[in-house]
Each structure stands twice: as C-alpha cells, then as structure tokens.
C-alpha cells in the first residue's frame, strides 16, 4: 500500500517536473525557435554563396569557392555595390547633419511652428515607400530632371532625415541640462560648451542615427527603383537579376557584408564591455 502510494507520487513528480520544466522554460524554447526562424534565410543566402551555380542560383549544384575568390566575377555586381556604398555614405553624412540640427532645434528651443515641424518629421515615416518613391519621381519628371545617381542621393537623404531626428532627439532628451549649465558655469562659452560637453555626450545618439541612415539607404530598393534611372545599386541589381537568375556573387557580397557588420557590432560591444569591466 505504502509503496504504491510512493511510486504513484514518484510518477506524479516526474510528470510534474516535466511540465514545470516546460512552463519555466517555455519562453526559452520559444526564443530558440524564434532565432531559428530568423536565421534560416540567412543560412540559405550564405550556403548558396558556395553554390556552383550556372545562370540561376535557385538550386544546389555542388560546392565551390570560386565565387568567393572572384566576387566581382558577375557583370555589374561590383559597380552596383560601389554605387550603393557611395550613395549610402553621402546620404548618411547629409541626413545626419541635417537631422541632428533639427533634433537640436526641437529639443532645445521653443519656436513657432513646432507642431508643423514635428508632423513633417513624422509623415515620411508614416508614408509607404512606394508612395514616397512614386511622388518624388513625379516631381523629377515634372521638373524635367532625369533620374540618376544624385536623385537617388536626394531621395535617400529625404527618408533618412526623420530617422536621424528621432534617434538624436531621444538622446538629447535624456541629457541633463545641468551638465551644459555646469560647463558654462565653469567658463566655457556657448561654442566650447557645445564642443566639450554637448557633442561628446550626444555623439552615441548621432552615431546610432548615422548607422541607421546608412543601413536604410544601403538596403533601400523601392524608392531607389523609382528614382534611379539607369544607375544600378546593389538591391536593384538583385531585383533585376532575380528575373533571369541571381549570380552567386550577390550572395557572396551579401554574406560578406553580413559578417563584416556582425563582427563590427560584436567587436564594438566587446570593447565597450571590456572598458566597463576594466574601470
């Protein structure tokens, strides 16, 4: 009798243990599945960069390192990449400067037209890309401007500004105004206060805004497609070639960009962590 009770109790405990383990770890299990979902397409992109593909890169034809040893082997792919990098850099610099200035005005000053300004910043983010792209092209066509490299830059700056403003403004809002008052109290004039205190403290926000702008610009396809004319960018190259087969070199470049970005971020985190620990 007593042994039966004990064993049934045991049975219950192991069953309970399993269900308790499941319920306490449900969120972790879910997270693992979630990460798998996130990384499957990346794994495909990476794997197919080694595909011994012909014209189309949709089916596996065997392993090769040839595409990695010759990433510019496919026609136009590196020109497109170069354009994307150039456009990304120029658009990032311009959008970061303009956006940061607006963020300072919004965070530090009272002025007439504040609401209108906020709305004008918000609207581009609430407008679908296809509308942004189409309307800008309509403007260029009406003005008799042929789309090309600089119209892409103009378009990218336009949609990046809002994101920079939001990022920098958030950083400025978290900045204690007393720090700047303290600087002025300690004989720093306006310019010195800005250079020695405000700028270094807001720099991470500006940096984050710039990175966001670059990644938005580099990866933009829809708006670019409307306003690019004959100029090719990397996303546009992928789109155009997707109709007749994307060369594996595109996967090589995308994978390389992925690892460069990943390692840069991880390295930055590691350095930041070290510095925090060392001090």
């Amino acid at each position, binding site marked *: 009798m007593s042994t039966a009770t004990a064993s049934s109790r045991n049975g219950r405990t192991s069953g309970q243990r399993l269900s308790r383990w499941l319920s306490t770890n449900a969120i972790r299990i879910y997270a693992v599945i979630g990460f798998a979902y996130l990384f499957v397409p990346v794994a495909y992109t990476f794997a197919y960069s080694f595909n011994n593909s012909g014209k189309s890169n949709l089916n596996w034809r065997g392993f090769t390192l040839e595409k990695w040893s010759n990433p510019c082997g496919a026609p136009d792919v590196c020109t497109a990449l170069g354009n994307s990098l150039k456009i990304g850099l120029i658009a990032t610099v311009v959008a970061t400067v303009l956006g940061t200035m607006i963020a300072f005005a919004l965070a530090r000053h009272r002025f007439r037209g504040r609401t209108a300004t906020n709305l004008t910043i918000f609207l581009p983010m609430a407008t679908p890309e296809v509308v942004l792209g189409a309307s800008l092209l309509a403007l260029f066509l009406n003005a008799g401007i042929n789309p090309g490299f600089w119209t892409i830059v103009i378009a990218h700056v336009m949609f990046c500004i809002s994101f920079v403003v939001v990022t920098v403004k958030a950083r400025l809002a978290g900045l204690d105004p*007393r720090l700047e008052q303290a600087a002025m109290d*300690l004989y720093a004039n306006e310019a010195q206060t800005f250079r020695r205190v405000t700028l270094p403290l807001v720099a991470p926000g500006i940096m984050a805004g710039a990175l966001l702008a670059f990644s938005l610009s580099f990866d933009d396809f829809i708006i670019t497609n409307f306003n690019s004319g004959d100029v090719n960018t990397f996303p546009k190259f992928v789109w155009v070639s997707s109709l007749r087969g994307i060369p594996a070199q595109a996967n090589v470049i995308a994978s390389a960009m992925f690892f460069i970005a990943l390692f840069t971020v991880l390295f930055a985190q590691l350095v930041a962590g070290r510095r925090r620990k060392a001090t």
Partner: protein
Amino acid sequence: MSRASKGTAQGQVDGGRDLRIGNVTKRFGSFVAVDDLSLTVPSGSFFALLGPSGCGKTTTLRMVAGLEEPSEGSILIGDQDVTFAKPYRRPVNTVFQSYALFPHLDIFENVAFGLRRRGSKEVKKQVDDALELVELGGFAKRKPAQLSGGQQQRVALARAIVNNPAVLLLDEPLGALDLKLRRQMQIELKRIQTEVGLTFVHVTHDQEEAMTMADTIAVMNNGRIEQLGNPEELYESPTTTFVANFLGQSNLIRSSVTGTSGTDVQLEVHGGRLAMPQSRRNGATDDLLIGVRPEKIRISPTGQDANAEQNELLGGVVTDASFTGVSTQYLVRMPWGQELMVFAQNVGVGGVLAPGTQVDLRWDPAHTFALDGSLDAGAGVQRDEGATPVPVG
C-alpha cells in the same frame, strides 16, 4: 574676452568681493518667484538661503550664477555689475544639485575643466591640490559613475573651488546623500570653507543643515526674505511666525498685554499671567502671539516644583509621550484645547510621564519671545517633514 573680465574680477580680491543683490525681482509669466530682494553677502562668509521649496531661493541662486536673468534689479560682485553677464563671464562657480559631473570626462578632467577654459597655468598642480583638499587624491583617473554619491559631491566641490571664485554657490549640495553622510559632509564643507576662505552661498531647505554650517542665514518665503541673522539670533528671537516654525519648532500661544513692569511686559494667557522681557517683543499691538521653544519648558506633575519666578501654565494633561533616547517629547493638552510640545532631557532614570498625567508647564520668562498677533500662527510649519504641528488655541 572672458579671461580678461575674469582677470579684473580677480584683481579686485582685496577691494572687497561682496555679493550685492539689489532690489531683484524675477517673474515667470505672472508668477513672482523672487520679489524685490536685496541682500549683501560679505566676502568670505558662509551664507545660507533657507526656505521651503518654491520660496525663490534656487531662482536667486541661478540669477547669481547667470543661469536666469532678473526681471528687475541688479547683481554686483565687488564693483562688477554681473546682472546680465553670461555664466562664463562671472567669477562665480556652482556646486549643482545632483552634481552635474561630466560623465564622459574623468575626475581630473572634470576638476580641470574650468581651469582649462580660462587657459590657466599649472593645471595639474591646482587640480591635485583641489582633489587633496576634498580627500580624493587617488581618484583622478576614475570616471564619475565609479564614485559613490559622497565622493561625487566632493568632486563637484573641488571642481568649483579650484577656480577660486569670488562666490561659490551650493544648490542643495547634500540633498542626495543619506543622513549619516550628510552630517559628515556638513562638517567637511565647513572645514573646507574655513580653509579656503571663499564666500559660500548655500541654498537649502534643511534648517539644521543651514544652522550647522552658515554664519548668516536668510530665511526666505514667497520670494522675500523673512529674517536675516546668525543661526542663534534666528532661533532664539524669530521675528515672524514663519521663522519661528520653520527653524525648529515653537509653541505659539495667543495672549494680550496687560501692562509693563520695569523691563518686563505683563501678559494674560487664557486666564494665566505671564511675563517676558520687553526687548524680545515684536509687534506693537496688545494682541500678541507669544512663543516658547519646546526644550525650554520644564514639565512636572501637578503641584510639584512651583516657582514664582517662572512663567507657569497649569492644568495640562499629557496626551502623548515619545521616548527618543536623548529626550522625551511630550504633547500636553492645555485647558483651552491647544496642544503644546515639550522636550524633556532624559537626565534621570525612569522619569517618563505616562499619557493622562496631570502636569504643569514652567519656563524662564527670558526664554519667551513675542510676535505680532495678526500673523498666521501656522506659517512655516513643516507638515511633511515628520514634525508634529503645534496648533494654536
């Protein structure tokens, strides 16, 4: 440019660098934060602006620092009119509330900030000396976030002192510290002020802090100065009910003048007769509020310790007794309904009177002060500070 004006300011060291605030008013919209305030802070003194939040003390400080501009009036340091000078063009430095240390600079660079802006020579030596003064010699290479609250407070102090300002402003500098550390820093601040001999203007809402450190205290209320004097004067002879209640606690009792005898005033209080020195009377009318501090009163069971020389109020009943170690605090309900507060030193053993005990209260007539009877007896009572209000009967 700032360096030049700085130089002149420092050239005037011996010509007196008193801080003179003349008829300053500051309005924010229709709200008057500081109301026609005039004040002279002598060079080298430790001056406290004391008052509840919203009394205008911080606004006054910010105007001296150059962080706000007065709506009217002038601010002079020595002979230099700094009323509208930029913060960086005046020989004033501030220890900010919550310190405002630059998080991206290490301690050394924080302290060196002002010196570098003025192109000072021997930055290293001056910074080292300043850090030594606040006993943080070994911390130069750390970042502010790695220091404790008390240490950050010292850095903020060193960062201001190192510039040898004509006036050093302290905005609730100890507000963020815990009680024990605060006591310790009070003594420390006083030591440093004596050592460097700078003028300190200290803004606080903590009356004990002000009394511990300052030579002179200005008690502020509603944008005006209620009373100015040294801590003892303010405590012993408040001239307004606000000061009487805000600095320590007071029993304020309604009374009327019945006559004078010699240097004394004769008073009638709810049927009882009291006396007090004419010299401590404020208020010309016969209707007065007389005040006596709780620790000046002796409490004894009814019928004991009768003494004709003393002021007596008879027939009280103990309603509450709290033993605090050093003393026992009693609330005594008087026949006219008012509760008076009495602090009795615990000099004997087992002398706590239980609630319900019938008691008499006595005190030296010289310890009585009198205020104008038309004043609000409840002004300045710090209700949220844990102090029990003393209602007036």
